[in-house]
């Protein structure tokens, strides 16, 4: 055991882990963070706090993470390479850890072009793989990226994202291997709708024995409507939505679509549970956090084990 992370403990116990997400508000409203986090309470092992998600300015993940931590819950703070250079990253990591935050996710970040500041200069001083490596060395070697010794090293349980669906597909396992090599502890995948392809990817992962070195949490997103499915298919980069998904949603009335979406998410979880190497689920109910408990329960992932 490297860290105090609750997530690490769950995973170490061999139980399926469950994480979810909480997007911080676009304003100084701590109560909103609390509201969202409260919805997830008891049903998840960690709550991702996004970092200027889709390049829209929001409350910093560090600050929101602190709020959640203060609620006695377990935040997983996200950090994107887009907005900070290595100095800012490291100081924030130390700061977060000082508040008891012990789990984080290293990401490249969506390009600024998609957000509300498309004119912004993307920093990209280091990339997500280099960030993983940096955080690992801060923890294990207790040195800053520049080489200096850290007095009071932050012991972070290090996560990263993986998109099994982006192309070139053949690189997707290899890139995971690079992250593993850099020192990643757990992976949250992109939302999975194309289960066949996910299985294919997982096979690549297990063939290389990567599942022995990293915990894969499968990304699950319930579709709220057929419109959302179409939007994700056509507009969100790196998303793989099979036509069958859209067809199935089209097959029910508009009122029934949310329920159908949840049903599909649960079915996915059931199927993914069978896949070798999957150690948990990351449930991203985008602006629909209230449905997470229902999904967790109906998917047989409740109650969460105590560690």
């Amino acid at each position, binding site marked *: 055991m490297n860290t105090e992370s609750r997530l690490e403990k769950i995973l170490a116990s061999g139980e399926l882990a469950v994480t979810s997400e909480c997007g911080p508000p676009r304003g100084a409203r701590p109560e909103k963070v609390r509201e969202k986090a409260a919805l997830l309470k008891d049903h998840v092992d960690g709550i991702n706090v996004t970092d200027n998600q889709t390049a829209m300015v929001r409350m910093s993940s560090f600050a929101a993470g602190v709020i959640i931590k203060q609620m006695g819950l377990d935040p997983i703070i996200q950090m994107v390479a887009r907005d900070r250079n290595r100095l800012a990253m490291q100081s924030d990591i130390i700061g977060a850890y000082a508040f008891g935050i012990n789990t984080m996710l290293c990401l490249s970040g969506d390009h600024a072009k998609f957000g509300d500041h498309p004119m912004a200069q993307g920093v990209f001083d280091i990339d997500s*793989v280099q960030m993983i490596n940096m955080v690992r060395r801060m923890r294990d070697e207790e040195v800053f990226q520049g080489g200096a010794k850290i007095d009071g090293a932050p012991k972070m349980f290090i996560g990263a994202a993986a998109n099994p669906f982006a192309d070139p597909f053949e690189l997707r396992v290899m890139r995971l291997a690079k992250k593993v090599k850099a020192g990643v502890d757990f992976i949250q995948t992109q939302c999975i709708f194309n289960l066949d392809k996910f299985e294919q990817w997982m096979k690549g992962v297990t063939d290389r024995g990567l599942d022995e070195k990293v915990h894969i949490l499968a990304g699950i997103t319930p579709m709220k409507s057929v419109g959302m499915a179409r939007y994700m298919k056509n507009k969100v980069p790196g998303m793989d939505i099979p036509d069958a998904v859209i067809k199935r949603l089209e097959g029910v009335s508009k009122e029934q679509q949310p329920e159908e979406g949840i049903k599909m998410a649960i079915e996915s979880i059931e199927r993914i549970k069978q896949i070798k190497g999957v150690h948990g689920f990351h449930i991203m109910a985008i602006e629909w956090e209230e449905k997470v408990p229902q999904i967790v329960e109906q998917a047989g992932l409740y109650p969460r084990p105590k560690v």
Partner: protein
Amino acid sequence: MITAEQKPIPEIIQYIAPYGKILLVGCNECVTVCAAGGRKEVGLLASALHLNSMKQGKTIDIKEITLERQCDPEYVEELTPYIDGVDAVVSMACGCGVQTIAGRYKKTPVFPAVNTRFMGASLGQGVWAERCKGCGDCVLGITGGICPVARCSKHLFNGPCGGTSNGQCEIDPDVDCAWRLIWERLKELGMEDRYEDLMNAKDWRPGGAGGPGKIIREDLA
């Protein structure tokens, strides 16, 4: 080569509004090649400025000259015979040229007529694309001859990110994913195994993070 694009003419007009005698200076190097500030563009801009002043009911005196290279003081020296006779200089060279002129002729204002864009290569007639960021520490040798700094929208050294779709960059379907290209090229070269080499965090100093770059060749200087 350095690429540039002409500034919107109204902006140029605004710069020179107070002046009656203008020295309009082109450059026969990069900006000629990228058709932004060569002899031809000098002529066109001069003509445009004349048309503008006609509209204002004013006259403007424009002397057109195109130097071999505006970023060399010796060439810039060729402006000396004209400089006292003009109120302002408009340069159609890249920022290097503009600054060379500004550095040489302290009393005459010099205005840029082009926006210097990037170091690019020509993809065909009238098309230029960014190919180099001048990062000062070239990695092309290990990335299959395709630069992740200049051509990946996120400068990823360990790409591709998860946004690639159909082999194109998430920011624009017309932009190739640099890492897809790197990967294809590595495969062609039989160097796939190099892909999993971790590329360490970059030292940005030679590329400008270390302050304004300067090269001194002691054997020549």
